[in-house]
């Protein structure tokens, strides 16, 4: 994309008064009550807030795993808030990368096969995806573990596999929900250093965390309370 120097580049993510309501029988839970914000390419954002304030809900919406009850969500300029299931799957596969608290690797697949999965669903030629997956493994420092199964790796290593997998499809945004939540402080720091590196390479990162230390590393922090944005601070 080429932009004239005067205008701001178009935001990658635009949330416009997004609401998410869960219905459970007679009770309705308003997990998000009208959230509006924008994210520019290259942003490094942490989403924080007390338990139950809607962080995961927000991240699921950002990740196109769920649709907002109302409001609009534009990802790379495209309104994805009312897309059908197949289109959302395509968006997830092509434009998003996920890192989860519990790694979420497929146990019966090897490291390199796990990294390949997003490419598999985009019908990339096998050799090309294998080569890409190897390169991503090397990037997170796991080139020696390609044929290992996830259970043969430490938690930190598993999370690095997950990060490699989130990178392999060159996503617009990488989303991480408590990426260090299951890790000890050493491997947690290691993973965070990896995120910092990715940020330096120009990736757009959004991570949900409870840990203030982790939150501090991001350049912008969005605080949620009861489904609303409490504060949105840049450093």
């Amino acid at each position, binding site marked *: 994309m080429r932009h004239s120097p005067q205008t701001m580049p178009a935001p990658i993510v635009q949330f416009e008064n997004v609401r998410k309501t869960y219905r459970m029988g007679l009770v309705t839970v308003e997990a998000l009550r009208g959230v509006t914000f924008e994210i520019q390419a290259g942003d490094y954002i942490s989403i924080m807030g007390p338990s139950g304030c809607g962080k995961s809900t927000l991240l699921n919406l950002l990740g196109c795993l769920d649709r907002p009850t109302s409001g609009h969500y534009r990802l790379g300029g495209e309104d994805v808030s009312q897309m059908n*299931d197949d289109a959302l*799957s395509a968006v997830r*596969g092509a434009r998003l990368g996920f890192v*989860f608290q519990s790694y*979420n690797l497929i146990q019966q697949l090897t490291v390199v096969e796990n990294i390949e999965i*997003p490419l598999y669903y985009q*019908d990339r030629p096998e050799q090309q995806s294998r080569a890409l997956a190897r390169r991503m493994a090397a990037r997170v420092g796991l080139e020696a573990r390609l044929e290992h199964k996830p259970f043969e790796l430490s938690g930190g290593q598993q999370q690095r596999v997950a990060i490699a997998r989130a990178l392999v499809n060159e996503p617009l945004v990488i989303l991480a929900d408590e990426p260090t939540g299951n890790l000890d402080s050493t491997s947690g720091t290691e993973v965070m250093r990896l995120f910092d590196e990715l940020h330096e390479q120009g990736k757009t990162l959004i991570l949900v965390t409870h840990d203030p230390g982790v939150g501090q590393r991001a350049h912008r922090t969005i605080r949620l309370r009861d489904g609303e944005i409490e504060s949105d601070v840049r450093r």
Partner: protein
Amino acid sequence: MSEGNSIQSLGDAFRGLSFVRLKRAVRLGVRSLWLHRLRSLLTMLGIVFGVCSVIAMLAIGEGASFEAQEQIKNLGSQNIILRSVKPPEEQKASDKGSQSYVLQYGITYTDIKRIRATIPGVTVVLPARNIRDYVWNISRRMDCELFGTVPWYPEMRNHRVAEGRFFTDNDMDQRKSVCVLGAEIAPVLFPIESPLGKHVRVGGNYYQVIGIMEPRTVVAAKDPGAEANKSALPRMYIPLETARLRYGEVLMRRRQGSFEAERVQLHEVTIKVAALENVIGVAEAIKEVLERNHKKKDYMIDIPLEMLRQAERTKQIFNIVLGSIAAISLLVGGIGIMNIMLASVTERTREIGIRRALGARRRDIIVQFLVETVILSGAGGALGVLLGVIIPFVVSYAAGMKTIITFWSPVLAFGISALVGVVFGIYPAIRAAQMDPVEALRHE
């Protein structure tokens, strides 16, 4: 997220499914099944046994009915066979052992004349008499049935001469002492040399051997009762006129110190009906003629065509029963597969969530699970076909039964088993595809 949506995505699942994608899906499926080898094998067994038992049972059934039909066909489907039987009341009387009792029963020459005169469409009549006696070659002896008949017996009963010739009209008219040996007799009485041109002795009479018949397939008819046993004896064929000359119509038989005499004119008469479609009608007419003229039921009517139809009906029933068993066993196999697949879907909820998050569409999940079920049932079917083809061979070899594997039975059985995979795989696959990715990811 609705049911309709998933049905539609099921349809979409195979549209735009490239060969490469299918190949990958198959590889993935094989891998995931291989991971649970024992479980996959056990799941498959239902289909294996279903398919293999269908093919094996069909082959055995087909073989048995083929043999039965062959035997019946040898009797001639245009023929009606009348046999003389001793009426049951007489049987009892003779058991009392009353002396100098002459038992008269059976089909007479008059009957044949009447049938010929009153029933149209009856072309050839093949009368026969049989007398049980020992046949001797010097010191070798065999318990046989002397079968007095007419020269056209071989062609009419589809029973050919293997060596030499059958007797001619000339032999018949001149009441020559010639005989044709049944296939079973020749090797017993003449173990080394060829019997052709030699003589055999029956009582005080010598007969020159002019031919040997081909082996006779014994009809496994149930109803002719005692007659069937008698016809299981090896036969020696002599001209009917010679038999009449030698034995008259009264047969003497010694029983525990008393004599028993039987007067039977004809033991067996074969009537050929000109047109196949008239066989049943003519048989009815013959039945009426005989009923009118015989006070006792001292005859039997065998209609090979009816036996053939009966055999066909039996086979049909057999096939229906077999089909039901097959259907039930495949159903059970299918339910087994579905059960395991449902468990597998639940077990792999997390995997489904991960795949969905990483870009798998509903249809990709459907294909993944459906391919697994189809591989399971397809492999089960293939293994079943293999076993089902081997078992009949073993049965033929071990039990000496004839088995016939028709081309369509393995094809059909395999096709149905693959179909079972699709049918019983659809529900678990849809269940998997219906899962909400967020919920699936949260699943422990």
